[in-house]
C-alpha cells in the first residue's frame, strides 16, 4: 500500500449533555494509506459518524475532544483553527452525507452548488468553475448534463442527487473522501450503482476513502480494510478477508451472523442493546451481550491481540489462557474458507 496519509491516535470525544458527559469515542486509533478504502462498521450510536466528523472539524457544539491526535500529513488536525480547517474541508478532505434528499440546497441550481468548492479553494472564477462542474457532472454519470446543470435539486431522483453530492465532494480532487452511509437512504438497485461509481472514481481521482456503514454486505465489495466499532471503541480491525473469513471478536461474529448470505438459513440477531455511554462499563463493553463472556470481561478491558500483521482484535478470547470455545456454525464455515484461501496463497 502507499504512504500513510492519516493517523488517528487514541482519540477521545465526549458530548456534554444535561444528564452528564456521554463518552462517545473512547481511545480510538486507526490509520489510512494513500489510495485505499477503509470501512468503519458498527451499529447506530457506535461512534462512527462522530469519528469522521472530528476528521472534518465539524463536531457539534457540545462535543469536546478530550484526548488524542489526528495526524494528517504530520500535522494535527485537532490543533488547527476554524479558518485553517476551512481550507482543508472540501479541498483535501471531502465528505458525502447519508441523505441525498436533504443534503442539497433546494433553492440553488446544482451547477452552482458543485462549482462552489472550486470558487472557494482554487480561486476559479464563476464561469470556469461552472465549466469544470459540468465536466464532473458528466463524470458522475448525469445524462444531458449541459441542460441539467441549470436545474434545481428537486428535479432529480434520489440516486441522481447522490451522484451530485459525490460530484460536489470530488470536484476539488480531495485526498481523502469520507462517505457517511452514502447508500443507506437509496433503493437497493441504486445502491450498487453508487458503489460502482465510487470505486470507478476512486481509480480516476486517486483518492482514499473512509467508508462508514452499518451494513457489512456493502463493505465486502468496497473496502480494503475494515474496522469494527462498538460502543465508541474499535474492537477489531484487519483486511477485508480477515474480518469476513477469520473474525475473532464475538461482536464481529454477531454482525456476520446477522447478515444474510447465500448459505444462511436463519438470521441471528444480537440480543440486548449497546451500553449506556454516559457510564460505560469498565471491562469489555460487549460483555453484557456476549454469550461467550468470561469473568475477566467484566473487570478489564481487553487489549488488542495480534492475529496477523494486519489483523488485531480486542477480546480476552485470544488470551493464551482463555478456554477454547466453538464459534457459531456460520463462523466456523467462514474460517474453513479462510484456511483454503491461505492454502491457495501459499
Amino acid at each position, binding site marked *: 500500500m502507499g504512504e500513510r496519509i492519516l493517523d488517528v491516535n487514541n482519540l477521545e470525544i465526549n458530548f456534554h449533555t444535561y444528564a452528564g458527559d456521554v463518552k462517545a469515542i473512547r481511545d480510538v486509533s486507526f490509520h489510512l494509506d494513500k489510495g485505499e478504502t477503509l470501512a468503519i462498521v458498527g451499529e447506530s450510536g457506535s461512534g462512527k459518524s462522530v469519528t469522521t466528523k472530528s476528521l472534518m472539524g465539524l463536531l457539534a457544539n457540545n462535543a469536546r475532544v478530550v484526548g488524542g491526535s489526528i495526524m494528517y500529513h504530520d500535522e494535527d488536525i485537532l490543533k488547527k483553527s476554524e479558518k485553517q480547517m476551512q481550507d482543508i474541508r472540501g479541498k483535501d478532505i471531502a465528505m458525502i452525507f447519508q441523505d441525498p434528499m436533504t443534503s442539497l440546497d433546494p433553492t440553488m441550481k446544482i451547477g452552482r452548488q458543485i462549482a462552489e468548492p472550486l470558487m472557494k479553494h482554487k480561486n476559479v472564477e464563476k464561469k470556469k468553475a461552472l465549466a469544470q462542474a459540468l465536466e464532473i457532472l458528466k463524470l458522475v454519470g448525469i445524462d444531458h448534463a449541459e441542460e441539467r446543470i441549470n436545474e434545481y435539486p428537486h428535479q432529480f431522483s434520489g440516486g441522481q442527487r447522490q451522484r451530485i453530492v459525490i460530484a460536489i465532494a470530488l470536484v476539488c480532487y480531495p485526498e481523502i473522501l469520507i462517505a457517511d452511509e452514502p447508500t443507506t437512504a437509496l433503493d437497493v438497485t441504486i445502491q450498487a450503482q453508487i458503489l460502482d461509481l465510487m470505486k470507478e472514481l476512486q481509480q480516476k481521482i486517486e483518492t482514499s476513502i473512509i467508508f462508514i456503514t452499518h451494513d457489512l454486505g456493502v463493505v465486502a465489495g468496497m473496502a480494503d480494510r475494515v474496522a469494527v466499532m462498538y460502543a465508541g471503541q474499535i474492537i477489531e480491525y484487519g483486511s477485508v478477508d480477515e474480518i469476513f473469513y477469520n473474525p475473532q471478536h464475538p461482536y464481529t461474529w454477531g454482525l456476520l451472523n446477522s447478515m444474510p448470505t447465500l448459505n444462511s438459513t436463519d438470521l441471528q440477531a444480537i*440480543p440486548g442493546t449497546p451500553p449506556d455511554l454516559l457510564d460505560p462499563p469498565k471491562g469489555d463493553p460487549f460483555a453484557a451481550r456476549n454469550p*461467550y463472556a468470561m*469473568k475477566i470481561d467484566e473487570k478489564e478491558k481487553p487489549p488488542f491481540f495480534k492475529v496477523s500483521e494486519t489483523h488485531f482484535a480486542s477480546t480476552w478470547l485470544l*488470551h493464551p*489462557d482463555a478456554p477454547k470455545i466453538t464459534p457459531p456454525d456460520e463462523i466456523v464455515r467462514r474460517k474453513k474458507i479462510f484456511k483454503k484461501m491461505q492454502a491457495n496463497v501459499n
Partner: protein
Amino acid sequence: MAEEKYNLQPDSFEPLGHDQEQEIESEKIAAPSLTFSQDAWRRLKKNKGAVISLFIILIMVIVSFGSTPFINHSELVKSNPEYANLPAKVPGIDINGLNGKMKVGGEWTDVYKENGIKDSVHFTLGTDYLGHSLAQRIIYGTKISLTVAIVATLFDLLIGVSYGIVSGWKGGRTDNVMQRIIEIISSIPNLIIVVLMLIVFKPGMTSIILALAISEWTTMARMIRAETLSLKTEEYVLAARTLGESTGKIAWKHLVPNVSSIIIIQTMYTIPSAIFFEAFLSFIGIGISAPQTSLGVLLNDGQKNFQFLPYQMWYPAIVLVILMIAFNLLGDGLRDAFDPRTRR
C-alpha cells in the same frame, strides 16, 4: 508482554453465564413513560417565561373577576368632580408621582393639598377626569376586555374546530367547497368584517364579541383541517378504521387528543389578538364607548389628556401590554411544549 499490567485471577477465564432474565432486565426502560400531556406540562414548567406569564394571567383573571362584588358599574359611572384628575397617591410612599404630587409647570406640587382634599382620601393610581378611581376602572376595564376576548375566542374555537374537522374528515367535494368559502372569507380583511358588523349592530360588547368571532375563526379552521387531513392518513387511524371502529369513536380517541394541542396553542394566540382588537376599536371610538369601561376606552380617555396627565394613559397601557406579553409568552411556551421539535 502488555498482559503484565492486567490483574488476572485463576477464575478470570471462567464463563460469566448470562441467563435470559438478565437480558430481559437490560431491555427494560428505566424511567416511567409519560403521557403526551404530562410530557408537555413537564416541558412547559421548565419554561420560566411561560410559567410567570401563566401566573400573571391567573392573577389578572382572579383580581378582575373577583372584584365583581366590590366594583360595580353603576358606581363607576357616577362622577365626583371634586376628585377629578388626581394623581396617584399611595400612603407611606414618598416618590414623586406616587405621593399625590404632580409636575405642574415644571414644579412638583401636591395636587391633593391644593384641591383641599382630606388626608384620609387617597387613590392608588389616581383618578380620571370625572373623579373615578383609576385603579377601579382599570380592574373593571380589564374584566371587560378579558370577557370580550375570552368569549370571542370560545366562539371562534367552536366555529373553527367543527368547521375544520368536518372539512378535513369528509374530504372530497365537501372539503373543496368548504375550503373555497374559507378562501373567500379570508381574503376580506378582518378589520372590514368587524367594522361592518359594528356599523350594523349597535357598538357594544356583544357586537364586538360577535364581530371578532366571525372574523377570526378561519385560521383555526384551516389549522384543524390540515391536522385532520394528515391524521386521517396516519397509520394508526387507518389501522383503527380497518379494524372497524366507528368514525365517532376514532374521532374521539385519536383526533381530539391530537388536535387539542393545536386548539390550545391557537387559543392562546387568539386571545391577545382579540384583546388588541377590542382596545383598537374602542380607541378609535367605534367599539365600547365612554360611560362603559374597557382597556381601550381607558386608553382613549387617557390619550386626550396625555400631555398634561400622562399617568391616565400610562397605567391602562401598562396593564394592557403586560396582558399581551403574558399571553404571547404563554402561547410560545405552549407551542414549544407541545411540539418538542420546534424547541431550541
